[in-house]
C-alpha cells in the first residue's frame, strides 16, 4: 500500500504535456469574449498612448519656437486627454480581467471540489488531508493571475514584439538580424534553465504540501502530542520540514531571478553590437546616422517585451507546478461511480442478498471469500466475530463504498452496481465507527440526515435515541455550537447525535457499525426500546460487541476468516455450542468471576 505521509514527497505520475495546457484553456476559452474585449482595450490604450510623443513633438517643434502659449496650453490639454483616455481603457481592462480571473479560479475550484466529492474513501485514506486541502485552496489561488492577465499580457507582448520587428525590418535588415541574433542566447538560456526550474518548482510544491500535511495533523492531534509531551520533538520535525521548504524555495527562486539579469545582459550586448557593427563594419557612409539611432531605440523597445515575457514565463513555470497537481487530482479515478446505464433505485423494501461475494482491498488478499447470504426486508441482523474478520467490510459493500471483486450484491433483487449511487445510499442509514461532527449547531448536525426536516422532527429523532436529554442540558440546547469534530462533546454524545442524524434520514436499510460502543449501558437500554419501535419494517445490520445489543436480533451471523461460520438466532446458536456460544459464555464468565 503506497500510503503517503508528511515525510514522503508525492511523485507526479504524469509528465507535463501540452495536454495540460490545452485542458487549462478550456477554463479560459469560456471567457474568450471578455478576454478579447480586454485585449482590444489594451491595444486601444497603447495606441492612445502613442499619441503622446506626437503631441509633445508638435509643441517643441512649433508652439515653443513660435512662442504660442495658447497653443501650448491647448496641446497640454490634449496631452492630458490622451493620458486620461489611455488610463481609462486600462482601468476598464483591469475591471474586466479581475472578474474573469476570479471566475476562472472559481470554476477550477468548483470542479476540483466536485471531483473530490466523488473520490472513494481510499483516496482520503491514502494521503494526509493537509495535502488535499492545499490543492483546493492555495494552489488554485496561485494560478488565477496566470490564467487571466498572464495570458492577455503574453499575447500583448508578443504583438508588441511583432510590430517592432516589422518596424525594424523597414529600417535596416542587416541590423535587424543583429538584434535577432540576440534571441539565440536568450532561447538557449531559457531552454537551459527551464528543465531545472520546473523540477525546482515541483520540489517546492511538494515541500509545501508536506509542511501543510504535518501542520494539519499536529493541529488535529494536539491533545495526543501534549499528553505524550512530544511538543519539542514535533517542533523539531516541523523545523526540518520548514527548512526543506526554505531550501526548495531558494533553489526555485534562484532560477527565476536569473532570467531578468540574463535578458538585460543580452539586450545590452545587442545594443553594443549595433553600435560597433553599424559604425565600424558598415561605417557611417553605408548606413545613416538616423538608422543607427532608430535601431538602438528599437532594440530597447524590442527587448522590453522580451523582458516582460521572461517574467511571465517564470510565473508560468511556477504555476504549472501547481496546475499539474490540480489536474492530477481531477484525473484521480473515481473508482466507484454510476455505470453508464445506471437506473435510479425505486423505493426499496429492504431485502439484501450477497451472491458468491469475494472481496479484496489489495489484489490477492481476500478479506471475504465466496460469501453468500440473504436477508429479508425488516430483518434485524447482527454481525459478530473477532476484530478484523471483515464485518465492516460486509456493510461497506452493501452501501457500495467498495465494489465487490467477484460475485454480486443485490438490494431488492437489483444488482447494486447497476443502480445510481445516490438512489442507493440515500435509502440507507449508515452509522460509522467514527461519528464525525461538523462545526455548527447540534441541530444543524442532526439535520444533515434530512435537510428539510422540521424542528419537531429533529426533536423527535433526538428523543428516540435518548439524545434529547443531554442536548437540553447544554448551554443553548439544540442551538449550541459544536466545534469541529465535536470537541466539547463526549464520544457517547457524538454517537447519539450521529444516531439521531441517521434516524432522521428515514432509511430503509440501517447499518450500525459499532455505533453505540461508547454509549453507557443505561442509555443504551433506553435506546433499545426506542429502536425496537423504529426498526420495525426496516432491514438492519448491526455490528456490536456488546451481547445485550446482539441478543435481540433476528439472526446472528458469526463472521470469521472471510466467511460466515455460523448463522441463526441467539437461541439456535447457543444450542449449537459453537463459536458464538463460546463468545457468549466467555463474557458471562467474565462477569461472574
Amino acid at each position, binding site marked *: 500500500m503506497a500510503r503517503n505521509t508528511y515525510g514522503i514527497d508525492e511523485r507526479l505520475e504524469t509528465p507535463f504535456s501540452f495536454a495540460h495546457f490545452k485542458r487549462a484553456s478550456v477554463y479560459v476559452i469560456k471567457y474568450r469574449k471578455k478576454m478579447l474585449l480586454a485585449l482590444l482595450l489594451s491595444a486601444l490604450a497603447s495606441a492612445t498612448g502613442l499619441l503622446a510623443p506626437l503631441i509633445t513633438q508638435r509643441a517643441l517643434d512649433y508652439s515653443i519656437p513660435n*512662442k504660442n502659449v495658447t497653443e501650448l496650453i491647448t496641446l497640454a490639454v490634449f496631452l492630458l486627454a490622451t493620458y486620461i483616455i489611455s488610463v481609462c481603457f486600462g482601468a476598464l481592462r483591469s475591471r474586466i480581467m479581475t472578474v474573469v480571473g476570479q471566475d476562472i479560479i472559481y470554476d477550477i475550484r468548483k470542479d476540483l471540489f466536485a471531483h473530490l466529492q466523488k473520490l472513494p474513501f481510499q483516496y482520503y485514506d491514502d494521503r494526509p488531508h493537509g495535502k488535499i486541502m492545499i490543492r483546493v485552496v492555495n494552489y488554485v489561488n496561485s494560478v488565477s493571475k496566470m490564467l487571466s492577465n498572464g495570458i492577455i499580457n503574453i499575447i500583448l507582448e508578443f504583438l508588441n514584439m511583432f510590430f517592432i520587428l516589422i518596424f525594424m525590418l523597414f529600417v535596416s535588415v542587416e541590423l535587424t538580424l543583429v538584434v535577432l541574433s540576440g534571441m539565440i542566447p536568450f532561447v538557449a538560456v531559457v531552454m537551459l534553465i527551464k528543465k531545472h526550474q520546473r523540477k525546482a518548482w515541483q520540489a517546492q510544491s511538494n515541500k509545501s504540501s508536506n509542511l501543510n500535511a504535518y501542520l494539519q495533523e499536529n493541529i488535529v492531534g494536539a491533545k495526543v502530542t501534549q499528553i505524550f509531551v512530544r511538543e519539542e520533538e514535533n517542533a523539531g520535525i516541523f523545523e526540518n520540514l520548514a527548512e526543506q521548504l*526554505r531550501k526548495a524555495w531558494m533553489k526555485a527562486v534562484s532560477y527565476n531571478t536569473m532570467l531578468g539579469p*540574463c535578458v538585460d545582459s543580452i539586450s545590452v550586448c545587442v545594443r553594443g553590437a549595433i553600435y560597433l557593427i553599424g559604425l565600424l563594419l558598415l561605417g557611417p557612409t553605408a548606413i545613416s546616422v538616423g538608422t543607427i539611432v532608430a535601431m538602438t531605440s528599437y532594440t530597447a523597445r524590442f527587448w522590453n517585451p522580451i523582458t516582460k515575457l521572461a517574467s511571465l514565463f517564470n510565473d508560468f513555470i511556477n504555476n504549472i507546478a501547481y496546475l499539474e497537481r490540480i489536474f492530477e487530482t481531477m484525473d484521480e479515478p473515481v473508482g466507484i461511480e454510476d455505470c453508464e446505464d445506471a437506473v435510479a433505485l425505486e423505493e426499496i423494501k429492504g431485502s439484501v442478498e450477497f451472491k458468491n461475494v469475494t472481496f479484496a482491498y489489495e489484489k490477492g488478499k481476500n478479506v471475504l471469500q465466496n460469501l453468500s447470504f440473504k436477508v429479508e426486508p425488516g430483518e434485524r441482523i447482527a454481525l459478530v466475530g473477532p476484530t478484523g474478520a471483515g464485518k465492516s467490510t460486509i456493510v461497506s459493500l452493501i452501501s457500495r463504498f467498495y465494489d465487490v471483486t467477484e460475485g454480486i450484491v443485490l438490494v431488492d433483487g437489483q444488482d447494486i452496481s447497476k443502480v445510481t449511487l445516490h438512489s442507493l445510499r440515500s435509502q440507507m442509514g449508515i452509522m460509522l465507527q467514527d461519528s464525525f461532527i461538523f462545526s455548527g449547531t447540534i441541530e444543524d448536525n442532526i439535520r444533515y440526515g434530512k435537510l428539510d426536516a422540521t424542528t419537531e422532527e429533529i426533536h423527535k429523532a433526538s428523543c428516540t435515541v435518548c439524545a434529547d436529554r443531554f442536548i437540553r442540558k447544554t448551554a443553548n440546547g439544540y442551538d449550541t455550537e459544536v466545534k469541529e469534530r465535536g470537541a466539547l462533546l463526549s464520544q457517547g454524545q457524538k454517537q447519539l447525535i450521529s444516531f439521531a442524524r441517521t434516524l432522521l434520514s428515514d432509511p430503509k436499510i440501517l447499518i450500525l457499525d459499532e455505533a453505540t460502543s461508547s454509549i453507557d449501558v443505561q442509555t443504551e437500554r433506553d435506546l433499545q426500546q426506542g429502536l425496537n419501535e423504529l426498526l420495525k419494517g426496516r432491514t438492519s445490520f448491526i455490528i456490536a460487541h456488546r451481547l445485550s445489543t446482539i441478543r435481540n436480533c433476528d439472526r446472528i451471523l458469526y463472521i470469521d476468516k472471510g466467511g460466515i461460520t455460523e448463522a441463526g438466532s441467539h437461541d439456535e446458536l447457543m444450542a449449537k455450542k459453537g463459536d458464538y456460544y463460546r463468545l457468549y459464555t466467555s463474557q458471562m464468565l467474565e462477569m461472574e468471576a
Partner: protein
Amino acid sequence: MYQLKWLWKNLKGYHAIYILAIALSITCNLLQLAIPIFSQHIVDLFLGKDLSVNLANLETKRDLLIALVAGMIGSTMLRALLTYVSHMTYEYTSQKMIYSIRTHLFRKVLYQDMAFYDKYRTGDIMTRLTGDLEDIRHMASSIVRMVVESITMILIGMAYFLYLDPIVAFYLFLMAPIIFIVTRSFRKKMKQMHKELRETKAALNTAAQENISGNKVVKAFAREQYEMERFDEKNKAFRQKHIETTLVHVKYVPYIDTCANLLPVILLVAGGISLINGRITMGEYVAFNGMTWTISNPMKKLADIINQYQRFQASAKKVLEIYDMEPEICDAPDAIEHPEVFKGNITFDQVSFSYGNVEVLKDISFSVKAGETVAIMGETGSGKTTLINMLPRFYDPTKGRVLIDGMNVKDLKIRQLRKNIGMAMQDVLLFSDSVDGNISYGDSDMPEADVHTYAEYAAASEFIEKMPEQYKTIIGERGVGISGGQKQRISLARALAIKPSILILDDTTSAVDMETESYIQNKLSGLDFECTKFIIAQRISSTKDADKIIILDDGKIAEMGTHQELLANKGYYYQVYMLQNGGEASHG
C-alpha cells in the same frame, strides 16, 4: 508600524544582510541611471548631426568608441549581477525570517491549552501558518524592495530637477499633495477590504478542511450535492470579496496614474513657458523630459504598494494574534521539580469544573493509593472524561485541587507531570506514520523490543504482524484503513509503552471484541511496571476488579466502592450489572 517593527525583530541575525540587500538595490538603481551616459556619449561623438565630424571622430577616437561600448556592456552586466545578488539576498533573508516566524508559531500552537483548540478551527490556524505567512514573506521580499527602489528613484529625480531648474521643479512637485489625498482615502478603504477578504479566505480553507475530514459521513448520507452547494457559497463569497477588493484597487489606479501622467503635462506647460521666456535651454528641457519617469513610474506603483501593504497588515494582524499568545494553563513561575518518576498517589479535593456556564463536575473528592485501580462509570455526558482531563491539566478545576503524591498538579512542571501519565483517549487519534512510529510516539528512542512487548500487551501484535509490512506499515491519518478496535489497541500500546506511573484508559476497549478484551484485562493486571490506573468503561467486565469504582451522575459522585460493595448497594452499578449479566433487570 509595530508590524514592521515586528518583521524587523524577526530578521534578527540577518539585519546586516538585509541592509546590504537594500544598499544593493539602491546601487542598482543608481547604475540604471548611469548607464545611459555611455550611450549618450556614443551618440554625441559618433552619431551627431554633422557627418564629417562623426567620420573624423571615428578615425581618431576609435578606441574610445570601443571603450564606451565596453563600458556600457560592462556596467549593465555589473548591474545585472548586482540585481541578481540583491534579489537573492532579499529572498534569503525573508525566507530566514519566515522560517523563524513559522517555527515560532508552530511551537506556540502546540503548547496552547485545550481552550485554544476548542475556540480555533483547524482551517483557521492553518491559514495563519500558510497563506498569511505568504503575505508577510511577500512584504519583506518584494514590497520593501519596491518601496526602496521607488524612493531612491524619486529622490534622485527630485534632486536632479532642483539642480536643473528649481522653478520648473516646483511646479512638478505641486502634484505631491494631490497624490497624498488620493492615497489616504484609498488606504483606508483597502484596509477594511483586506480584512474582509482575509476572513472569506479562512472560511474557504475551513470549509475545505472539514469536508475532507468528514468525507465518510458525506458519502454515507449521499450528501455530495449538498456539500458542493455549501462549498459553492464559500467559493462564491471568496470570489466576490476578491473581485470587490481588486475593484477598489482598480478604481483608484486611474486617479493615481493620472496624477503620475500630470507630470509630463505640467512639464509641457511650465517647461514650455520657461523655454519661451528663455529661462531654460532646450537641452535642459530635454533633460527634464528624459527624467520624468524617475518620478512617474514609482508613482504608478504606489497603488500596488498600498494594496499589498494593506494585505500584509490584515495577515500580520492574524498571525500576531497567535504569535504572542500565552496558554492559560502553563507552568507556575515557582513550579516544583518533582522527582522524575511519580509514585502515583492521587487525591481529588473538592474539585468542581465549569465549562462556560455549565457545571460539568461538582465537588468531586476521592483518593487513590499508588498502584491501585480506579474504575469510573456513569451515563454518557456525566463528566467521566472531564474528570480525568484534570490530571494532565488539559483543563484546570474551577474550584478545588487535584493532588499527585501530595502536590497540587498546578505546582508541578507540566512537562514532568504529563511524562508520568499514559493516556489512551476515547477519540483515538493516530498519526500518518508507521505502526512502529505510532506506538513509540511518547519516546521515539524506544527500543524495537519494547514496541513489540507493549503491542502484545495491548493484543495488537497479532494483527500488526499480519499487515503487509508489519510494524513498518504506514497507517493513514487518524488511523484510517484499520478498524476501530485495532485503532484502540494501537492507542493502548502507545500509552503503555511509556511505562507511566499513572495510566488512564478512557473507554479504550469499547470497540474490541470480548475475547480480546479479557486478554487485555489479564495483561493489564500483570504489567511489568507499577502504575495507578484510571479506567473509564461501560462494561462490568472491565471494572469489576478495580480497587475503587466511582459512579458519576451529572458531574457528582453517586456511588463509590468495590464491586461487592456497589452490588450490595443496589444502585446504578447493580442495574448495569444485571443488564449485562442477562438482562433480567430490564427485560424481565
